[in-house]
């Protein structure tokens, strides 16, 4: 990476995604968006707004129907499944709501899994620092089933950080956690941005979670309807409530 890093880590250009055959559903409609290095962005919106689809397309987990997705200067749209995986492994970190860890592996093995799959030896000092940072030093030999939900998410964060990715995508990382644990996990993500200069893109429906971000984007019907620099919990909640009223549809538990 001797080339000077561009300011935008992730760029979506006129990305459209439609699902289904006979009655196609448009999940994203010509979305243009950029995510800057060293920032934390919260992507919000009611169920079916397209926020998860945006995350999946941006992370190369799903392919857009049209438009381009760039990670740094790399265009994902023409990559093979294998190259995409390699890109995810080297340059992207993931934290999901649940089922983040491989049950057969210990905490330490889970953290080192991406490096192992890539056939690389991670920098031991960095690994030690990450493990220390997430506070799991005493549980390295445990299996995921022996951990609480919050501890599991911290393992997932450590796994994402260890490869020093250009961007970490989170899909409802606190969706299954209580308020106190959620705050710990979010604080950890925030400090990754502040201390290590990480870039974090997080899908959430929780205004409190979104309040940890530098920037909050709201999606509705596949369009970006609001894009605000940290507006505060109150304002986020208002925006969401307004959208809900407009759509007159009950808020489902998850899935956006």
């Amino acid at each position, binding site marked *: 990476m001797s080339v000077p890093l561009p300011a935008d880590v992730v760029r979506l250009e006129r990305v459209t995604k439609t699902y289904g055959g006979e009655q196609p559903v448009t999940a994203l409609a010509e979305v243009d968006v950029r995510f800057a290095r060293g920032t934390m962005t919260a992507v919000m919106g009611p169920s079916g707004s397209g926020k*998860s689809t945006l995350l*999946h397309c941006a992370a190369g987990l799903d392919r857009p129907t049209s438009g381009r997705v760039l990670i740094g200067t790399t265009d994902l749209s023409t990559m093979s499944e294998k190259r995409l995986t390699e890109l995810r492994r080297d340059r992207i970190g993931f934290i999901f709501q649940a089922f983040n860890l491989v*049950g*057969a592996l210990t905490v330490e093995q889970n953290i080192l899994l991406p490096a192992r799959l890539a056939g690389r030896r991670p920098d031991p000092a960095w690994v030690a620092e990450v493990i220390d940072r997430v506070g799991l030093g005493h549980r390295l030999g445990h299996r995921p089933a022996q951990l609480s*939900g919050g501890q599991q998410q911290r393992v997932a964060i450590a796994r994402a950080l260890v490869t020093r990715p250009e961007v970490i995508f989170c899909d409802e990382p606190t969706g299954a956690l209580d308020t106190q644990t959620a705050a710990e996990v979010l604080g950890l993500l925030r400090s990754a941005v502040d201390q290590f200069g990480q870039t974090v893109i997080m899908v959430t429906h929780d205004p409190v979670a979104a309040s940890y971000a530098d920037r909050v984007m709201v999606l509705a019907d596949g369009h970006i309807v609001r894009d605000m620099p940290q507006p505060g919990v109150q304002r986020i909640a208002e925006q969401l409530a307004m959208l809900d009223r407009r759509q007159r549809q009950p808020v489902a538990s998850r899935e956006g």
Partner: protein
Amino acid sequence: MLGLAARMLRHRKGTFVATFLALAAGVAVLTVCGVLVESGLRYKGEPQRYGAAFAVIARHQLTVQGPERFGERETSTVTLPERGSLPESLVRKVAAVPGVANAVPDRTIAVAAAAAPKVPVAGHGWGSAVLTPYKVVSGTAPRTQGEVAVDERLAAAGKLRPGSTTAILTGGTVHQVRVSGVVKASGVRGPQAALFFTDAQAARLSPRPGRVDAIGVIPAKGADREAVTAAVERIADGAGATAYTGDELGLAEQPEAVAAKSFTLEAGGAFGGYAALIIGFVVAATVGLSVRYRRRDFALLRAIAATPGQVRLLILGEVGMLSLLAAVVGVPIGLLAGLWIGDELVTRGFVPENFTMSGGIVAAPAVTVAVAAVALLSAWIAARRTTRIRPTEALGEAAVEPGLGGRVRVVSGLALLGCAVALTGLTGMTSGQTAMGAAVGMLYMFVLAIALLAPWINRATAVALAPVLRTVFGNSGYLAAANLRANARGMVAVLTALVLSVGFGGTVWFLQDNLERQTVVQSREGTLAQHALVGGAGLPAAVAAQARRIPGVLAATGVRRTSVIVPFMDEAMTVVAQGIDPQGADRTMDLKVRSGSLAALGAGTVAVSSSQADTSGWKIGGKAKLWLGDGTPVTLKVVAIYDRNLGFGDVTLSNATLAGHTATDLNDHVLVRSAPNADVVPALTKLADAYPASAVTTTDRFTGALAQDLAISSWLNKMLVAVLVGYAVLAAANTLIMAALARARELSLLRLVGVTRRQVKRMANAEQAALLGVALTIGVAIAAVTLSSIVNAIAGQPVPYVPALGWVVIVGGTVALALVSTIIPIGRLLRTPPVEGMGIRY
């Protein structure tokens, strides 16, 4: 990647146990088959009698030339049911070969020695002693007609010394002979003791005048052995015989060894084929299922870091390691089972005593590789399906059931079903071997069609039975129907395994029962005689004539059991036959003659069963071309067609036709019909006394013994079917247990939303009742159609006989399967508190 695979295996033991069991049991079953085949290939008998010969010409097999296809002539070879023989003139031809010092004819004569009745003895001419060689230990070689030399074994058992006189029984008559000397063989001890006549006496006693059993070749010193071998082989070929050399010499002296060789090859090969089919299917289904249950693991790996290739490698690594582990466990079990079967085969008389299970060196690795290949292939297919799923699936927790299956699967399934139904018509219209073949083909097509169509059958069952389940089980039934519908694909293995067990197993097992029963019934109903004079060492033709002279005897028929070889579809097929004295035979046996008359039976004519007539296209007054038991071709005029083939054989010949063409040339028993009120038993007993090893029995007891013989010969079939059914049931149980244990979350959820434990249990019961009930119904239907077709074809009975115990086993076994594999595991799951069960399980 392998390290990761190993860790996955250790962690997910539950999921892998099923795959491991299917693999290990498959390896064990196939190892047994492989060992049978390999032992058959390696088995060469034990050269003892012909140990000193360079080559031996003998005729133990009949090779039939088939038509020429694709530039190659097809041939089929059958072992001759009676000892084959060679013309005496061949001896001179062999002797004339340059480099041959001596061509020694050997005649083997069945002998029973009164001094040692328990020792099996074979008589020969002294001239053939050089082939072993035997040396005189004391006394001299036999020099006159009344002299014999005995080997040490017989001398010891019968306390015989040079000069002692003893009685021997051969050719059905007793001879008083003087022991001229005791002889000793240098090599290993053979299965039979030897007794030597003079060559002239041996020729006189031989049941086949002008013919010899074998010709031993002793080459001149310094002769070109390869040239001698080539010349001898040419001569043998010309006479339809085989030249045995080297370690094949054991086969030359023991026709049973040749038969045992082809028997084990056929049994192991045929059964191995069926087993491979079933095992392949089960392994594929189990591996596929275990991969499917862990889709989420794989999706997560894909999302965070693993390329599709790495996930495939991981799955292949897991299955590969399991295959190796399965081989480590399965191969020793298979080898042990092979040894046991070898012992049983010897005990039950399928193979000679010196038959040993010597396979394994080739069979075990071959089976391991084959099973591993099937497992890896199915793992690869399952892995491909898994890696095609988008990694985003890891984000959701709903495991989407994949579709029912591709179009190719439906179309081929329907096509097979159509063929099977068409064959049902064919079996109904024909009879005999054609109908039998069609019925077996139909059985396979039905089972395969069901296997292919299983997802749709499961789905249709769920839809069709939904109202019934709701009515019977209430809300639990409603849930059960929904589950059955959703799991239509997952339960494919269960449906197929059960249909296979019941359809295939039921057909083969009950077919044996039907054959036994029909044979006994036909034999009992068709035997008009009240008494049978059974000769353990054979009875000469004169006995029947003597019995006829006893006052009160209305008719006496000498019967010999043999086999003949008939051409069938360009191949040779051995069929059971009997030889009878036609005179008065209609009063001792009723073959249920359909057309023609047994009265016309004599030299040059034959009576055949209706099913054999159908198979071979023989008609009354037409010609029947066949080979007698010793391989002699004959063309006979068909004079009668009868129905009772199972009790009396498919071909009935006159003893006049068979004379000189069976191993002993003696009758096996004489059927005696006496006038009512006439007590002929004392006179018959007196007659029997004149022939050692013979006895008078009632014909009822006689048919009882027949049933026992049949039970022995059906033992192998039944055991093999039991193994296959056991394997299929294991597969079904595996799938069910795996499915049941994977339901922890679902069941906890149901209980949290207010379904009681009782209702959950009822739901499981309803699912089992529907799933297994349908499988059972289809299996029974297939077995019923096939079985009635076959039984109708070979016994003319449209309704097959199924013993009550058979029903109990089928229904009871299915209920036990449901209990063990689903209801108990679900009961255990229900003991976990639902909140705990809902927890995120890894």
